[in-house]
């Protein structure tokens, strides 16, 4: 076995796989590939990859249906790769259990950053939630639900705390609006996106210096939010 983390690339275009290979192998990752849905499931079961790059445009199966199937066998982070026209399936894939997304064409630094975040959250799985998430000069204590800036404690409403907790648990990953609704208000509030907007607005005005250009609570139009811990 190679020492580097194993990444399963589910991509039917051989040339695209070569591009992934060139940029990822030089970073020390081990790559295995699957060119269709069936092979992907087989690879997930036999190789138990640390992270899965899943292209949504596969020949034999809708990538969307593949996400729950992979989830039956593996908890490895899934990063879906989609063309721009698949805006809707991106959201659905995230709601179905994918961890993040990349839109083609993407740059290599983008790809590497997403993979690093994915692998980091993988290593966090299993840890107790006592850890603290740090962004800028803020420290958010997940266990005690306490947000501290420098040495000053911030005053947050319970709803804001819940929102921030969900985002912090998936730090640097995109969390869909639906997921935030479900975590904070329960599944009965599905599709009440206005709730999330209202509280994210107040949360942003408490945390951000320039709420119009957020540094930490970044929104991704049509998808959801991302808590950025590193610039």
């Amino acid at each position, binding site marked *: 076995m190679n020492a580097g983390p194993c990444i399963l690339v589910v991509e039917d275009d051989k040339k695209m796989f070569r591009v992934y290979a060139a940029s990822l192998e030089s970073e020390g990752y081990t790559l295995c590939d699957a060119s269709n849905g069936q092979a992907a499931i087989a690879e997930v079961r036999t190789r138990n990859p640390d992270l899965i790059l899943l292209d949504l445009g596969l020949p034999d199966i809708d990538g969307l249906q593949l996400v729950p199937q992979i989830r039956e066998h593996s908890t490895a982070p899934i990063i879906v790769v989609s063309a*721009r*026209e698949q*805006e*809707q399936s991106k959201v659905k894939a995230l709601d179905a259990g994918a961890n993040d997304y990349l839109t083609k*064409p993407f*740059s290599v630094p983008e790809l590497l950053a997403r993979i690093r975040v994915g692998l980091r959250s993988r290593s966090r799985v299993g840890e107790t939630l006592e850890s603290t998430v740090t962004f800028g000069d803020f420290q958010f*204590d997940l*266990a*005690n*639900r*306490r*947000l501290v800036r420098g040495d000053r*404690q*911030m*005053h*947050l*409403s*319970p*709803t804001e*705390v819940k929102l921030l907790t969900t985002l912090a648990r998936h730090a640097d990953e995109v969390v869909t*609006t639906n997921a935030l609704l479900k975590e904070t208000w329960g599944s009965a509030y599905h*599709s*009440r*996106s*206005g*709730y999330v*907007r*209202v509280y*994210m*607005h*107040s949360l942003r*005005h408490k945390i951000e210096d320039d*709420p*119009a*250009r*957020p540094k930490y609570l*970044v*929104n*991704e*139009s*049509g998808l959801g939010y991302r808590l950025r811990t590193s610039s």
Partner: protein
Amino acid sequence: MIAKLTSYLAPENQSRFISRTGLRIVVGLGIMLLTLLFNLYVVGREDLANVTMVYLIAIAGVSIYLGYRPAIAATVMCALTFDYFFLAPYHSLRIATGRALLTFIGMFAIAVFTSLLHERLRLDARKARQNESRMEALYALAKALVDANSSEEVCLRSATQIEQAGAGNVCILVREKETFRRAYSARGQVALETEDLALANWVATRLEAAGMGTENATAATACYIPLLASRGCVGVLSLRPRTQSAEATAFTEVPSILLSMARQVALALDRALLAQEKQGALIEAETERIRSAVLSSVSHDLRAPLAVIGSASSTLVEHGLRLPDAARSEMAKIIFDEARRLNELLRSLLDVTRLQSGGLIVSREWESLEEIVGSALRHIEEHASGQILRAHIPSAIPLLQLDAVLIEQVILNLADNAFKHSRSEQAVEIDLAIHDREIIVYVIDHGHGVREDELASIFDKFYRSESTAGMGLGLGLTIARGIVEAHGGRMWASHTAGGGLTIQFSLPIGEAPPQLASTDLLEPIAAGGRG
């Protein structure tokens, strides 16, 4: 026949004092009786010459005012009474002398000739009147058709004129490309009836009139006359007598004036259809011209980055090892940039196609414009090199129901356009203002602006001002406006005070956004207070 068509086309009011023949005969005989009494008691039997004259005057009067038949009856009565009362032997119909016989025959003959002459004059006058009204109707039709520009107008006006001429209900079926597609009555376009269509098709192929009053399909309730022009049958005129009106009942022969009118209508319709076809061909040619111009400019724009990618990558493939590192990474950078540009071009082409084919899916959610603008700003700052963007966003903007991805695209397109038209030290500003029932977003640049006449055309598809030729496909603003309009808003351009262009768009504030009944906005608690 003439009588038939006039009673059909122009029901004539007889210019006689009394209309019924029987009554007229009685009146004629009464006049003769008065004349007889006048002759007996005023003129006297001795003055035979004057008696004759008075009789002739009376017959002439009856003939003129009461017509042919009363005049003949009056003549016979006149002859009998003349013989009985004025020719010896009196009170007997016998004629005694040759002179008396000559007088009797002479007077009878003069009376008959006078009546016949008057009848002839009357017929001539009536014919002249008919001709006149016929000419009037034809003239009115010609006048109505002279400035009818479209086939529709020709049909409507013809139907109106023919109906005014006293015919029944007129319907004109237009024949284009061998089939009947439209039909018009005097009141406007009507549906094509199956019964009409069947006969009209028959008429159009045989080029003969059919239906009531013709030799073909006589059982039909209307008559169908082909509208013949130089290139064949351009339509069919159908005429259905009004059943409710007494004077226009079924007719046994197609009035000739109707045939004349049909000829006029055919010519006008032919002319209008020809003009229409010519116009259609012109539009088609123009569309084709624009399409090929667009195609050539688009393919040029798409090919340019491809050519660069081709040669840069070929340089890497052929001489990669011999190139210094700096040159190699420069080639790679060029390929990367051009590929991205190509991707953007294709994306905007796809967007505009989707917008126009109605394939744009707007999935509305409650969204915060502050977030969307923020996301757009982040996107621009990640990609723009050293250009300044300022945003002034009031903090209390109501949530709107919109498609965040699409509206972000609008802002990106507008900002991109603004950067293209200004120098790098000229800041681009994004402003938001809340009006009564809408939010207005301004994207302001201080670049070189556009001419007054370009303010509207910059939103046209593939429009590029001279200064930006080659910098894009000219689709960004088209797409932006299309998206805003799909959201029920408007987009327009104006000059920035002091130079430059301001593009603004409105987004309607719909129903009130969801307000939370929760108290936790009002009572912020210290985080961790629960634990």
